[in-house]
Every structure is written in C-alpha cells, then in structure tokens.
C-alpha cells in the first residue's frame, strides 16, 4: 500500500505541507478564503529539533493502537487506510493519548482528525506531497 514517507534530509522546514493540508481538507476552493486570518488545523506537522526539520503525519500503522483504543469504535481500517468516522467520534482524545507519533489531533469541531491520504477530498492523493518543493515527503510503496 502507498503511504506518506519522510526524507528528513530534504526538508526545508517551509511548512507548505501544513498549509496545503489545511486547504485540501477545508472543502473550499480558494486558498486565501480557506486559510487567511483563521486558525488552521493541518493533519501534518513540521517538527524542529536543533535545526533539523521533518514532517509528521499518520503512519497508517499495520496494527494501529488508535483503532484498538477508540472508545466509540469510530476508527477503522479500510484497505490499509486508517479512517476516523467523525460522525461517531465524541472527542474524548483517547486516540491522541495512544498514537505513538502524535499524529492525531482535534479538528475545528472537537472531533479527532488525522491524515487520511487525501483519498476522501478532491485531491485524490496527498496534497502535502504534491506541494512539497523539495521531495521531502513522498507518497509511495515501501
């Protein structure tokens, strides 16, 4: 299955992936309208440590702790893709407490959200990868 992988040595720390992610999942078609002057809720995060930067998003684990821990049965695996049913989620944040990568966070409504590989939105493939100017994030089979 294709997943998002990080090439740490190529990351510039420009955070374009965060903006592209927030835009891709906003449901709007104008980036300025979607993001300007608003709190944004990207599902990919740039971490920085002593000058090194890298992007972190859901690993779509093969045996995901979030799926096993969700108190609402709201997280499931469909053909390898780990998905949150935001309609069932009650915002308890147990998934935040168990994800070893810090890849889940509450979204604007309080429901948990995370990378779902842009398969449900209009992009069809991860917007963070498409928009990365330096190939520091890739979407491939490994």
């Amino acid at each position, binding site marked *: 299955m294709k997943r998002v992988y990080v090439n740490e040595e190529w990351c510039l720390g420009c955070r374009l992936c965060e903006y592209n992610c927030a835009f891709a999942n906003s449901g709007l078609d104008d980036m300025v309208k979607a993001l300007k002057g608003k709190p944004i809720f990207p599902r990919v995060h740039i971490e920085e440590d002593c000058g090194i930067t890298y992007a972190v998003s859901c690993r779509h684990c093969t045996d995901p702790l979030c799926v096993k821990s969700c108190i609402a049965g709201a997280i499931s695996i469909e053909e390898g893709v780990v998905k949150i049913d935001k309609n*069932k989620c009650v915002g308890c944040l147990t998934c935040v407490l168990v994800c070893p990568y810090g890849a889940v966070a509450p979204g604007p409504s309080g429901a948990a959200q995370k990378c779902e590989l842009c398969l449900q939105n209009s992009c069809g493939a991860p917007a963070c990868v498409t928009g990365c100017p330096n190939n520091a994030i890739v979407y491939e089979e490994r």
Partner: protein
Amino acid sequence: MSEYLIIGNGTAAAGCIEGIRSRDSESSITVVSAEEHHVYSRPLISYYLEGKTDLDRMLYRPRDFYEKNGVRLIFGKAVKCDAKKRTVTLADKQKLSFDKLCLCTGSSPFVPPFEGLETVEKRFAFMTLDDSLALEKALTPESRVLIVGAGLIGLKCAEGIAERAGSITVCDLADRVLSSILDSECAAVMQAHLEKHGISFMLGDTAVRFDGSRAYMKSGAEVDFDILVLAVGVRAETALASQAGCEVNRGIIIDNKMQTTVPGIFAAGDCSEGFDSSTGSRRVLAILPNAYMQGRAAGINMAGGSSALDDLMPMNSIGFFGLHCATAGAYPQDAEVFEDRSAGIRRLYVRDGRLCGFIVIGDVSRAGIYTSLVREKTPLDEADMDKLKKFPSLAVFLPETRRKKLGGVV
C-alpha cells in the same frame, strides 16, 4: 472445527470475535449477552445524555457485525460453568457446549450496604445503556441530583446531565475528585473547572443513611435530592470463573496470553486481572483499550495463534466541559518529577532513566508520544527530559530510529 463460546458482549467480546476470525473463519462462535443490546460503546452512555451521540452512532460495531462474523448472539445470563464437561448453562436452563471459552463479563457496580437505600424511589447506577435510558426518563429540568462517587463514572454522569438537571451535587469519601488517577493538586484543577460548570462537591464526606429523598451525611449534613446516582465503584464480574475453578483475586487471574488457570478457558477485559507493565504487578486494568486488546489476544490464542501482551498499563484520556486530562503509567514515590506550568500542568515521572508515568492537564496534544515512551521503556537522559517536559516530540529519538519510524512501514 472448534466451538467457541464467549460470555459477555462488550468491547472485550468484540475483540475476541475479531481475534478468532483473524485465524479461523470456519468454526462456530456463540456469544451470550445479559444486556439485550447490540454491542455498544459503554463509555458513551454519558455522551448520549449530553446529546453528543445517539443510539445508532454509539454502536461499537456496525449492525451487520454478528452476521458478517458468523456469530450466534444469544440474550441471556450464564449462571453455571462446568469446566470438565465443557458446558455453560444459562438462566433459562439452555445448555451450551464449548471447546474454548472466553469470559468477557466486565464489571458491575459495587453498592455498599447503605442504611435505608430501599426507601429511595429514584436511584440509579451508571454502567449500562439501560441505566442511562432510565436516568434520562427520570430527569426533569428541576431535578436535584445527588451523585455518590467522584470517580470517572460519577463525574462523567454529572457532565452528561449538567444541562438537563436543576442541580447536581457529587459526594465522595475521598478528599479529592478522580482520586485513582490524579494527585491533590491536579484534582483541584479539575474540580474547580467542574464547579465553574455548576457541579457542587462534598468531598471527604459521603452518605451514610437515606430516608426517602434525604441523605444523611457522615459529616452530619443533610442533602435533599430527587434523583440518586450511585457510582461508588465497580467490581470485576468473576462468579462464573470461580465456579469453573479458575483462580480469582480482584479479577480473574490471567497470564500474558489471557489464559486463566483452567486450560481452555480465557478471560479478557474488566473482569480479568493481568499485569500492569508500569508497576510490574497484577492489576485489573478496567479501561476500554485494554479490554479490546486483551479480547483480541484471547481470540487469537483460542484459535491456535500466539499473541502475548506484556505492555498493558493504566491510561486515561478524560475531559470535562472542554478541559482535557491525559494520564498513563505509574507515579512512584521515588520518581524524579519534571514539570512545566507554562500552559496547564505537565508533569512527567522518571525513574531509572525512563519515563514511568505522566499527567497532562490542558493541552494534551501529542501525549501519545509520552505514552509510547512509557510503554516501550525508552531510555532517556536529562536533555531529553528538558525537551519533553515542554512538549512531546519525536526529537527525543535518535535520527536513525526516527528515520525508521517515519520512513518505513510500522
């Protein structure tokens, strides 16, 4: 072909079904459920009262779950288990046979012998969907509600009904709220927040006697109420296991493969007592994630596979009125404490160069990184701790470890 039998129909049972079916799609699975409901998410009974979910959305698995997994679901109570003859008898005398049995019987509310309790007309426990529905029926916007027990269940109940009751008073013999997971200081922060939302507390005090709609407290105070909710504590449901000859302590004793002391009988979830990896001692770990994981491991092992769980521990993500609190592991007396107060409370407990537990109140984002450090007993130095106490991040891992985590299939 084996005959699998599961007693109980909660999260552990769902895990057990999925564990069995991951290896054996042929054999028969029978589930006996005392609650006449499709498997639902027990922790959501308070969110239901709050209007954050409904009966449909709170199903733990889809409507076609049993059918898809070839499960026969029987509503009834198992009352007898004969380990030699490999049979379980239900209250209606129906006899079921098994090759492998999993006890997923959960826990039930513990009610101390209060004097005069029988004189209280509207009294409820808060464990099941039916409890929640009955409470909902009794509630009016004028109801004065007295909740006995300021633990997770009592407080979740208080939050759930806050908008639907006239007044809510919570009493507990302990001197603080959430005494099993929080120290006094953290508990005080949560309490103050709950008070801001209209919940009153009587701590270090509890009801000793009831007379109709009046509670007589240990302190001598009297509380008038319309509705009483008893959330004093829970007890593992172990009767069937004892009868089958399984060793029982506070819960049904299991090894790391969910095997009880009687061959062929497994146990999982709130009814069982396994190991707490954060202390190395036996413990009932009554939380939903563990119920699922234990259930699934039991199922895999029942079906001839091999799944051992050696890293379970207590952990809780609990929020009230928007204030979240994340805890995991143990807080031993001799631990070194790293603390940050720049936003809420962030307290990390370190022993032998390893994170052994933590409490975060307020911004719980990425707390799972802490949890994984506790679970995996990752060695950490002083510099790591200084980074971690500000914010959890993968920066504490060596670059090559991180590359494996972010650059490979995990």
